């Protein structure tokens, strides 16, 4: 019994160090693909180095102790990763959607919590402020967030409506030189760390979704209160909370974009956000394959490594295919976005496919690891818990089907 425990401990240590130290140098990765642009390869390598050195060693701790990796997020900010697609004049790295997708994958492969902190900041806060804000707003509310000095968040969902975004019941009452916000927003990522938020509220419920406007809200404004941190299944390093508005004062000049355009702004924002979340899901899926494939070569059963058994090879094959397919779907969406072409359907496909790939791969990774997959000595159980949310947030899988189906029909109608 002791010998068994000792043997499995050595196996854990070697497989764990292998999983932690599966450096880009040791195995072939997608970064070797000759069709990738040089800058994308460099960005991928930089993000991978950072992830392996700064995030992998503490990812399990972040999850176990449920804390926000402030030090690492600050470093990410210094590298330009908190405002990847924001132009340089507003403090961003001025890169394209492909760079963002690759960065998201690499960071999330090490720590999915850090991934979501990064993606909420990048695509849910910076993107709409950059696209719909005026220069004055960008100077005050975009620069400090894109440069990573402060954090931003996005508030669309409410306790009463998630998928039904048009039914927003948070109200914004026009009081002349300011608005008063009343209501509650649910499931807000970065709620506890954010300085500013993009908030959607309705100025006229009778206009339904056309009555919704977007606002930039100072989290420290009177009337804004952040609820307790949700105790989540996964991505536990990221704070998620309900935020309540009680006559919260929002100055007139913090209206984002034109009045009544809030819904459009939200939908536009989510399109880009889906590329980020798809990247996060892909990172989790890749990390799952990394740990399963390494373990399968070291674990012996029936006198040989389990990697030599067909049943395991079949699992690895399915995981590998879903990962490659997810990556190409994400890259397609990113390339279309970068080319200025419509990419709504493609982003939805990427997010749907990659999130399902993540849950599949994490599930299979636990299966390959057997009992070891069920304990926190190995990261597989964390990947399983982290993966689950990717099928829910930023548009549930059901909504993605709706978006994709609707676009397909449009393509086929005259």
């Amino acid at each position, binding site marked *: 019994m002791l010998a068994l425990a000792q043997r499995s401990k050595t196996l854990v240590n070697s497989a764990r160090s292998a999983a932690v130290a599966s450096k880009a140098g040791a195995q072939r990765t997608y970064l070797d693909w000759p069709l990738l642009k040089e*800058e994308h390869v460099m960005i991928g390598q930089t993000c991978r180095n*950072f992830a392996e050195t700064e995030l992998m060693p503490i990812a399990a701790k972040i999850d176990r102790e449920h804390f926000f990796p402030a030090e690492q997020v600050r470093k990410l900010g210094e590298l330009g990763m908190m405002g990847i697609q924001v132009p340089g004049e507003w403090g961003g790295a001025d890169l394209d959607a492909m760079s963002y997708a690759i960065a998201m994958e690499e960071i999330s492969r090490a720590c999915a919590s850090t991934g979501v902190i990064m993606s909420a900041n990048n695509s849910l806060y910076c993107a709409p402020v950059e696209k719909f804000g005026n220069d004055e707003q960008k100077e005050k509310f975009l620069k400090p967030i894109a440069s990573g000095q402060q954090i931003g968040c996005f508030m669309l969902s409410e306790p009463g409506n998630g998928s039904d975004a048009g039914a927003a019941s948070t109200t914004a009452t026009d009081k002349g030189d300011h608005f008063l916000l009343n209501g509650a927003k649910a499931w807000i990522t970065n709620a506890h760390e954010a300085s500013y938020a993009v908030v959607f509220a309705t100025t006229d419920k009778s206009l339904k979704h056309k009555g919704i406007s977007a606002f930039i809200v100072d989290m420290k404004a009177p009337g804004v209160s952040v609820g307790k941190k949700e105790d989540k299944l996964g991505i536990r390093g990221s704070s998620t909370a309900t935020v309540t508005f009680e006559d919260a004062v929002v100055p007139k000049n913090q209206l984002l974009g034109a009045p009544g355009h809030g819904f459009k702004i939200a939908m536009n924002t989510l399109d880009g956000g889906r590329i980020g979340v798809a990247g996060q899901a892909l990172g989790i899926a890749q990390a799952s394959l990394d740990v399963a494939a390494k373990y399968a070569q070291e674990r012996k059963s029936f006198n040989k490594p389990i990697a030599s058994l067909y049943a395991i090879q079949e699992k690895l094959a399915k995981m590998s295919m879903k990962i490659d397919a997810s990556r190409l779907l994400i890259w397609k969406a990113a390339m279309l976005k970068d080319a200025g072409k419509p990419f709504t359907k493609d982003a939805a496909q990427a997010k749907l496919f990659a999130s399902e790939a993540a849950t599949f791969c994490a599930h299979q990774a636990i299966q390959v690891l057997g009992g070891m997959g069920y304990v926190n000595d190995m990261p597989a159980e964390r990947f399983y818990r982290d993966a689950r949310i990717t099928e829910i947030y930023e548009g549930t899988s059901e909504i993605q089907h709706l978006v994709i189906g609707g676009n397909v029909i449009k393509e086929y109608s005259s």
Partner: protein
Amino acid sequence: MKVLVPIKRVIDYAVKVRVLPDKSGVDLNNVKMSLNPFCEIAIEEAVRLKEKKIATELVAVSIGPKAAQDSIRTALAMGVDKGIHIETNLRTDQELQPLAVAKLLKEVAKREDAKLVVLGKQSIDSDNGQVGQMLASLLDWPQVTFASKVTFADDKQSLTVDRETDKGSEVVQVTVPAVVTADLRLNEPRYASLPNIMKAKKKPIETLAADSLIDAKDLQPRNTVLKVEEPAARKAGEIVDSVDSLINSLKNKAKVI
């Protein structure tokens, strides 16, 4: 003051190196290559000198096939101003040897009118640790090797360097022009930030043929590699149950006492 930073593209430290079946060398096919870790430390030191306004311009130089430019791009992304690629098809892990490298770098140092050369103490493929020393000799410049700390005087003409030796730390003072080789504890290299990676694309890399700088025969290896083989596999250890048994094994099996 212009600072020259010679860098080398080597097998990535994490790769499980394999020997070619004919034992002529290490298998480099489809193997991940990276910037030599000590070269990265040298680049970081040079970039810090520029940030302290001691260096005015940083030039990275690398010798090898076209792919050597990858390492130069990394240097540019870390803050180096321009790159020089000396092209050669000689295997940089065994055919292109330290004296040839030193001769090439001497030409570049003079061509660029560099006042300081900062390079890694050794490369992790050939592990010779000779280039810095030979270069200093060819240039007739002072050398400080295995630097763990570099401090310039206010006049920017002399520098005090802590060097790591087997006996401990030794403090040496030299005046420029000089050659400094970087040891592990000199600094912790920065990650290239994403904006700097993009900026690096616009920085120039000049390509020169190796035999345009020195005589072709000086490039040829002076030593011939006869055979490359893996070290003998480590035998399993033995658990002993008493001190007597231990002494017996040390005496009769390991033959160390």
